[in-house]
């Protein structure tokens, strides 16, 4: 019995550890690299860089162009899928590199099911996304959450394709 429980603990630790990012990974993809350049470059270097390549001057306004991809959920679920974890990891890295950015995570559901339960489900989805980012190292104070339940579908149609799109958490810059 004890052995069984021990096994369970070990297995779950391994599983949990596997999907939990322990440290920052190097940035991948063009979007992130761009963002990193903008925000991490210290002011003097920036100036030099500007002088060398004055084509795209860095302006605060441009920094707002950060795009955080939405994540999606299975029907009636609020656990993070592998795909959602991959997207969240990217989003976390972007937020890490843009420490001034604050976000609101919106939790949404598809139209099926009851409105009240979907309100709570949307809250849990937003919470799941927030908790991941906080575990990653993003300050909790930078993240607020709001559930819209099934009230704000992005696809108004009544089919599987639309439902899959609507079961989501969106990351909105504040």
């Amino acid at each position, binding site marked *: 019995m004890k052995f069984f429980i021990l096994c369970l603990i070990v297995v779950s630790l391994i599983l949990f550890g596997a999907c939990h990012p322990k440290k920052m990974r190097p940035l991948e993809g063009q979007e992130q690299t761009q963002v990193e350049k903008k925000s991490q470059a210290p002011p003097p270097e920036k100036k030099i860089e500007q002088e060398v390549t004055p084509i795209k001057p860095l302006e605060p306004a441009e920094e707002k162009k950060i795009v955080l991809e939405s994540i999606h959920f299975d029907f009636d679920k609020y656990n993070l899928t592998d795909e959602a974890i991959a997207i969240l990891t990217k989003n976390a890295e972007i937020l890490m590199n843009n420490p001034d950015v604050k976000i609101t995570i919106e939790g949404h559901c598809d139209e*099926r099911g009851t*409105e009240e339960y979907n309100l709570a489900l949307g809250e*849990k989805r937003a919470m799941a996304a927030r908790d991941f980012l906080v575990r990653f190292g993003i300050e909790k104070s930078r993240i607020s959450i709001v559930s819209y339940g099934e009230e704000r579908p992005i696809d108004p149609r009544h089919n599987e394709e639309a439902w899959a799109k609507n079961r989501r958490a969106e990351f909105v810059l504040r």
Partner: protein
Amino acid sequence: MRNLLWLLLIVLVGPANSQPDVHLKVTKQEYRAIPIAIADSTGDLLTPLLEAHHDFLSYFKWAIEITGYAEIVNSSSGQPEAVVEIKAKAASDGIGYEIKLDDYSSKATIFRRRYTSSSETLRHTAYLAADDVIFALTGRHGIANTRIAFVAGKRSQSHLYVATIDGRWVKQVTRVPGIVMSPAWSPDGNLLAYVSYSQGKPDLYVTDITSFETTRFLAFEGLNATPAWSPDGRYLAVTLSKDGNPEIYVIATDGKSIRRVTFYSGIDCSPTWAPNGLELAFTSDRAGSPQIFVTDIEGISVRRLTHEGSYNTSPAWSPQGDLIAFVSRIDGRFQICTTDPFGTEVNVLTQAGNNEDPTWSPDGMHIAFSSTIGGKTGIYIMRKDGGGKRLILDSYEYARNPSWSGSAYSITMNEASR
């Protein structure tokens, strides 16, 4: 290793065996609408009294049929079991009525009463007379004189309304269109609690329906949702996520106390009070899928109520306490069901479309709900056995979230505003 396998087997088989034997059944309607005929004599009535009388008749028939207890048939071909004789006569300030209910075959008189109606009280008098006839015929109360709060409009462009169930008296409660949901009447019928996003997130508001004064009652971080008044009106059970998770709390309406009732890391929401005020039914996913549970208001003793299917939500405890209505997903669609407070038998009351938001009539004999039966979302009422389904408030687009007022209501005082 063998021991481990046995353990697994016990774990897997155990819960299935311990589940009570629950039977899901489509309700055989316990009640059938009694066919009645109307014999109408207008005597000396002339226009405009004659026109007023025709209005009276249509109000009267509507109030009879909306109950689902009786249907009006032709006296010659409809095989009536009872006849309502309506004698109208010009009176000094309106129309005098003598209304008599006879058994059709024995001709014995069951009920007889006189009414006087001015043009202002015409509808009220018609409803009163119809309710009297229904009571004489069935021993049950009519519902024409009751109110419903509901939400209508497209999602984030919605408004909250209160209306008589005939839809002839309506007041808009919210001023700015937005997301609004979950209206709940106080037991005295004066206050309406509801969820509104008017400050950008789900907060709980209370509007006094007599003065239309609105208070933002709860605005904790996160959800402030699914309000339900205690039967004595002193407490609101609500869902809050302020402590990191959607949980149920009981809050004194004077704001002096707050008590957490549920303690679970998943979803707990949609509380509804037992009429004795000692228990709450609510929705929780603690069993892996949303199911209905019952807890005492201290949160100590919790029992599971629903076992069939993987989606049971939105409990509504009947005013008599004998039944709990809820929404269940059956074959991929959402249906209104009832069960007793121990969940021993489930009755499925709707079969078509998607159905949500059950709410009980004041006497606990009817259920209002939102449904897509007619192709688009609207509010329907039915008897508690599932019979006599009728669309109400059909002039409102996307009407949903009905909440039936528990208190009786006099139409006369608002008759002028129709």
